[in-house]
């Protein structure tokens, strides 16, 4: 008997059937991957399981018993836990407090103990959990000081502490470094060995093939096929997802770099907590060239892009665009001068969630013709027309341009930002993790667009945690380590091994980082 069975689930949103008669099951002790294009209905299905949406039709069975799930609290009571992509942790609380938060009452039934929280016995229980699952963390550190991978571990501990038997991971690896992904898949094995069931959603098919026992492909709300990992290949899954063959290869002709577009000189910058994140960094990007920044996340890539996109707290150094010193310019001046920016943290910087797609599509250019007329009157028709054509060009799955951005699937939200920035006719495109959370077909399309931009003579600065992405797009690769560029290599001489070596700070002799 499966641990969990969802039968014939249908969920309709205005203008879309997000789940159309979906049946899905999960055995104890397996990792079941759910894959499909952006907007296929993966997150919706899991939100139904987690009680965030009620299904229009269909039933949920736990251990063969039909049940209904009224909300997240109820879901966890029934043994279903979800690790969100944006963690639900209190940053200033310690790991221990985060884990017991909201559960402290249940675990101390006596009245007196309700007043006095017996942290010692709770701590012992959690320590035992950590050991059994190999999820060691420092219980007393505040969560905000922990790397993303460890925070995710805390999320998992939280669910285990509450007795989760089914764990749902919706794109958990998008924010992790390769090392952290390794750690996560080890955790998966530990958990399944104890008989827990795991649902794993990802757009990275290599990962899926690595960790999944079974793979289910969903397309436009319908289940296409459920297959065992044995015999599954990347190409086969991609074909099933998209409904037509996917190339998975980029045609990227050698660049002929022309004049210099971007130059940063001796940049030194600190983050909000005063830690040095860029130290004396210099870099140039030319028209018709893609420069890729490789590096383990947190080595200053984010800040480098930010200093170019906005007026950051630069301690010293200069930023030049086409020879002009733009260090003191604000975002609007920089955008007007031709800088477009696909931000890394799209939820924080990318979209006005309650605004229409049309409004979001012109953000950054919303203040000038053709989108406004005299006296600043907004030209709704021009805005909507532009949005419609961009939605079509980028194959953004939505009922229409008046749909609010929050109603789009995660990947389609990202496509909106990418479409907006790429269509801004920039002379310099800053692309941070441009394909994160985006499906395989859209990834291919975005690659083509980036290469196209280069061929049109634009300068592109690309930051990505995905080495394959860097290697297939870049004409020149720079490796960042501790706020510096420690290695630079032309594409035809670049090897993955060499780059990986420098990413770990090899040259500095502390490769245990």
């Amino acid at each position, binding site marked *: 008997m499966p641990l969990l069975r969802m039968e014939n689930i249908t969920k309709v949103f205005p203008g879309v059937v997000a789940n159309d008669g979906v049946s899905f099951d999960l055995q104890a002790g397996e990792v079941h991957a759910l894959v499909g294009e952006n907007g296929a209905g993966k997150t919706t299905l899991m939100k139904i399981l987690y009680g965030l949406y009620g299904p229009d039709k269909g039933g949920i069975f736990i251990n063969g018993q039909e049940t209904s799930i009224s909300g997240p609290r109820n879901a966890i009571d029934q043994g279903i836990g979800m690790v969100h*992509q944006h963690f639900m942790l209190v940053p200033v609380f310690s790991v221990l407090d985060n884990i017991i938060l909201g559960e402290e009452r249940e675990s101390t039934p006596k009245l007196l103990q309700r007043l006095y929280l017996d942290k010692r016995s709770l701590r012992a229980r959690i320590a035992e959990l950590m050991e059994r699952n190999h999820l060691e963390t420092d219980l007393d550190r505040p969560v905000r000081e922990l790397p993303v991978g460890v925070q995710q571990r805390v999320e998992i501990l939280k669910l285990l502490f509450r007795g989760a038997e089914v764990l749902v991971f919706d794109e958990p690896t998008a924010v992790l470094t390769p090392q952290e992904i390794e750690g996560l898949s080890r955790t998966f094995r530990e958990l399944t060995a104890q008989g827990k069931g795991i649902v794993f959603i990802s757009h990275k098919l290599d990962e899926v093939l690595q960790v999944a026992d079974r793979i289910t492909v969903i397309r436009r709300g319908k289940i296409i096929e459920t297959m065992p990992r044995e015999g599954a290949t990347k190409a086969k899954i991609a074909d099933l997802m998209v409904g037509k063959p996917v190339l998975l290869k980029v045609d990227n002709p050698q660049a002929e770099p022309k004049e210099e577009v971007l130059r940063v000189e001796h940049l030194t910058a600190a983050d909000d907590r005063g830690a040095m994140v860029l130290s004396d960094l210099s870099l140039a990007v030319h028209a018709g060239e893609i420069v890729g920044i490789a590096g383990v996340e947190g080595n200053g890539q984010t800040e480098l892009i930010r200093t170019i996109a906005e007026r950051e707290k630069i301690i010293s150094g200069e930023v030049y665009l086409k020879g002009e010193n733009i260090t003191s310019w604000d975002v609007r001046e920089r955008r007007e001068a031709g800088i477009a*920016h696909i931000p890394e943290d799209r939820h924080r910087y990318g979209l006005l969630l309650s605004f229409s797609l049309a409004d979001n599509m012109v953000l950054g250019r919303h203040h000038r013709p053709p989108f406004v007329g005299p006296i600043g009157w907004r030209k709704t028709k021009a805005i909507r027309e532009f949005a419609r054509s961009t939605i079509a060009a980028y194959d953004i799955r939505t009922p229409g341009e008046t749909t609010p951005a929050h109603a789009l699937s995660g990947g389609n939200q990202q496509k909106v930002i990418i479409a907006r920035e790429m269509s801004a006719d920039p002379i310099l495109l800053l692309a941070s993790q441009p394909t994160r959370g985006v499906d395989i077909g859209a990834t291919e399309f975005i690659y083509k667009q980036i290469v196209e931009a280069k061929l049109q003579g634009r300068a592109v600065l690309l930051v990505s945690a995905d080495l394959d992405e860097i290697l297939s797009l870049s004409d020149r690769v720079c490796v960042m380590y501790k706020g510096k560029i420690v290695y630079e290599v032309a594409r035809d001489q670049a090897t993955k091994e060499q780059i990986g070596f420098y990413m770990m700070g090899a040259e500095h002799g502390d490769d245990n980082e």
Partner: protein
Amino acid sequence: MATTTSRRETLLRLLSPVIGFFAAIVILLVIVVAVGEGPGAAIRAILRITFGNPSRTATVLSQAIPLYIAGVAVAFAFQAGVFNIGVEGQYFVGGFVAALVGIYLKLPPIIHIPLVVIAAMIGGALWAAVPALLKVGRGVHEVITTIMFNSIAIYLMNFLVNRPFNGLEVGESLEPQTKAIAETALFGRLNGFFQALGWKIGDHVYLDYSLIVALMVGVVVWIVIYKLRFGFEVRSIGEAIDVSRYAGMRVKRVQVSAFLISGGIAGLIGLQEIFAIRGFYTYQIAGGLGFDGIAIALIGLNNPLGIVFSALLFSFLRQAGYGLQLYTSVPNSVSYVITGLMIIIIVVTNELVVRYVRNLRKREVA
């Protein structure tokens, strides 16, 4: 379960004040019964004072005018993510500046009246300027500064009216006040116009020029917020500051502008009281409208159209309180309690609904 989230969302948002209103009525009846009055009598009293004859209905409309302007003033700042709690002080000051222009300038009405309106806006905006600049320049939270500026305004006006601008002969009245406002600046009434349209309202009701001011404010604000690029930036900043900054918006500049505009609108709240009803300025012009404006803006969803509804609702509730006091044995103080309670209930219901909707939406973000 068949309803989808966003359809439910729109429905709830529209219905929430109505739900709140009926919840409030039920509680009102409970209280009325508790103090020993019949629910039927209470309802009759309320209907009588509000819809008993055309003049009474017109009074509801008349009282809604300053409430409406107050609601729009607060809403404009809210739209930009600025919490202007200082509307109270801004209208005290705006009204004072306007009164000075009304008292000391000699002009034909066609110029004098618009000038008075402009002066009120300038006064209100000036009083908002310091908190606005402190916010963007020094990061001082506007809730603190505007509350402080409310106190300053009230006592400053108190002082000014008592001393330098006191217009009273000795022994004339106990209420300190300025000199009388010039005839040319006084707001006439539109009652004749409404009577001509067949609405049989009495001459004593104040449907004066401030109604025109309120309508103009509503229309202009609606256009600015929903049709102009500036309004788009205002709403965008109110929704997500970081996103707006990344889109190249000059967040501080827009917030300061919205703050000043909010203060400018606030300056207009006292016009009816000063220029149509009293004909002079006193620091005792109806207080508390600035705070009512916060609730009115919230219930009206910060939209100039929604605020028409919420301002009328507020005015209705006030009158209902008077009605209870007048026609039933519900004691005076209880009727105030009831009015206050109804407002709270409506605000809370509304806020609960809005929060519920927001939660639904948050969950959808993934």
